[in-house]
């Protein structure tokens, strides 16, 4: 789960990370009022779940409250990578001497959280990794022991020469690690981590990003509550609330499948036979008829869908549950587009009987079903 910059900053502040104050505005008038309160030059920052906000024009400096209002009115409602900006963060502009990067990423290869720090911050860390890999220090952490003081110190020395700044950075690393572990993150980063000009030379976090492991949310209801549904596609919100995994795509063959791997393979097969999948939809392992009803609701809401394909391989999933779901859903809302059903596995005979009694036919072969669905979406006859 993604959370917004201002939310990530709040979680880091709780651990003691030095971060300039900031407030969120949902209107230009509110942004102006916040700028007036700070009484200094501010930065207005779009709060969306997308990288490259600066490049897209979603981060701007404003010298006066009036200018803040004007800039906020432009950023609010702006589209960044297909997402509408609903909120802006207004924060006093900082004097910057240097910019560094500090992040923790859950790494599949080492099976550990890995610290990445670089004195070349403020920009895309992937670019630094590609062009000047020696400017990045990667440090895997054994979570059974946690981040040790010598490791925090090593990270600090990689960023700064001044011992006072090294110590300050080391402390921030400990705080960043604590926030990462406590909140069940799969990513936590500070970019940029800046130093202010001498003589102060403070080390301060100016931007923060966190991604939470969805599997942790049951353990952290307070983090789950940070979810901003207005920042997500409505169909994906509906699906999640119905315990389905759904991703909208641009094609016209709606797909309902059990299991992520088979769902991807089904979409690939649609493409292989010349069609275009409208979505990824995984109804999961132990499905009940209600899940199928919700799945059909979500798919039929997409006006691009010209045919619907069920591909169910019953293991834990009982195919008769799916058959009952199809019958119930189509009775409630008769389908306007053709339906192709492929069912095999647990309780297949019962499922086939239920479908036949209700006027549906089903195949047990995946390739045949996909070919039919593709042909029907193109307005042709079944293969």
């Amino acid at each position, binding site marked *: 789960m993604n959370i917004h910059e201002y939310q990530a900053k709040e979680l880091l502040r709780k651990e003691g990370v030095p971060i300039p104050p900031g407030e969120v505005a949902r209107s230009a008038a509110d942004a102006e009022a916040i700028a007036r309160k700070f009484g200094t030059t501010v930065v207005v920052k779009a709060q969306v779940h997308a990288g490259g906000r600066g490049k897209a024009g979603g981060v701007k400096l404003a010298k006066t409250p009036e200018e803040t209002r004007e800039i906020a009115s432009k950023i609010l409602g702006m589209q960044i990578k297909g997402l509408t900006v609903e909120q802006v963060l207004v924060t006093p502009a900082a004097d910057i001497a240097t910019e560094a990067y500090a992040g923790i990423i859950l790494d599949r290869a080492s*099976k550990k959280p890995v610290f990445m720090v670089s004195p070349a911050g403020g920009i895309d860390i992937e670019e630094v990794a590609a062009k000047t890999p020696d400017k990045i220090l990667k440090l895997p952490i054994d979570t059974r022991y946690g981040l040790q003081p010598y490791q925090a110190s090593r990270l600090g020395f990689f960023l700064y020469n001044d011992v006072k700044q090294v110590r300050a950075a080391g402390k921030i690393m400990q705080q960043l690690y604590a926030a990462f572990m406590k909140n069940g993150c*799969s990513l936590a980063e500070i970019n940029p981590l800046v130093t202010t000009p001498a003589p102060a030379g403070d080390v301060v976090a100016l931007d923060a990003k966190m991604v939470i492991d969805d599997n942790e949310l049951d353990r952290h209801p307070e983090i789950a509550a940070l979810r901003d549904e207005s920042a997500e596609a409505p169909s994906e919100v509906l699906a999640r609330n119905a315990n389905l995994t759904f*991703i909208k795509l641009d094609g016209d063959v709606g797909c309902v499948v059990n299991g992520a*791997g*088979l769902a*991807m*393979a089904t979409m*690939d097969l649609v493409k292989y036979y010349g069609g275009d999948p409208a979505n990824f939809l995984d109804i999961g392992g132990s499905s009940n008829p209600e899940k199928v009803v919700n799945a059909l609701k979500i798919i039929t809401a997409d006006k691009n869908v010209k045919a619907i394909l069920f591909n169910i391989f019953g293991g*834990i999933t009982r195919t008769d549950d799916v058959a009952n779901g199809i019958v119930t859903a189509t009775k409630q809302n008769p389908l306007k587009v053709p339906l192709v059903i492929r069912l*095999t596995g647990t309780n297949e005979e019962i499922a086939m009987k239920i479908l036949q009694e209700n006027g549906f036919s089903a195949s047990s072969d995946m390739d045949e079903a996909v070919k039919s669905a593709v042909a029907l979406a193109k307005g042709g006859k079944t293969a």
Partner: protein
Amino acid sequence: MSIFIDKNTTVVVQGITGRDGSFHAKQMLEYGTRIVAGVTPGKGGQKFEDKTPIFNSVADAVAATGANTSAIYVTPMFAADAILEAADAGVKLIVAITEGVPVLDMTRVYPFVKEKGARLIGPNCPGLISPGQSKVGIIPGRICTPGSVGVVSRSGTLTYEVVYQLTRAGLGQSTCVGIGGDPINGTNFIDCLAAFEADPATKAVAMMGEIGGTDEQDAATFVMQNMKKPVVGFIAGQTARPGRRMGHAGAIISGSAGTAAEKIAAFEAAGMGVAKRPIDFVELLKKKL
């Protein structure tokens, strides 16, 4: 022969009185798996299906029955503890079926299991089956048939699909292993490929990968350098959009690493057969057997 499990495998089921645990324990018993014990804290002394003794801890179960393998069906928040408990009790093969285990939990569990000299399969996996001998997990027994194809996959139902098509075409399996789709899992493709290479009963391997990560590319390098037996590969997610989560936490395309195209290119470079569709496994494997 087979890999990891055979007719001598003795199993303790952790969470045997739960909804999923009891259902699948019955299925395993029906298949002929030697389930010697169950564990549910607080229900020690009772019997499962009037036959299998239930213990309060894995240590008690192992001491009393000598179980060498564990199947875990406990809920996600208790899965890490269950795996640690099994490893600590001296169980050498731990199969964690549970879906939704926090990844940070696995960062503590994985090194501990290694240090104990145990093998973990999963979490978030369908387990494994050596047809005609034993099954540990949830793979439907009736779609499998004994034979000489080793099957290894990151997915559940896609594994069933391929195994079903192999069986229909008369191609039996030595062992089918679902390694799971999570970012941190106990056993990877290479572990399974090495075991299949060493197993006299396996003549060829079918491998189903997914987008995300570099496990399939690493596996391709392993095939090229260390395997004499033919391997046919498939990648699910060729139509996926970059950066989107496709149900499995592991299946994320980040930047250039982990796309289907990259993985298929790695398979081709390693001289592996590449199945474009699940059904293609049949012809490609027949040619190599």
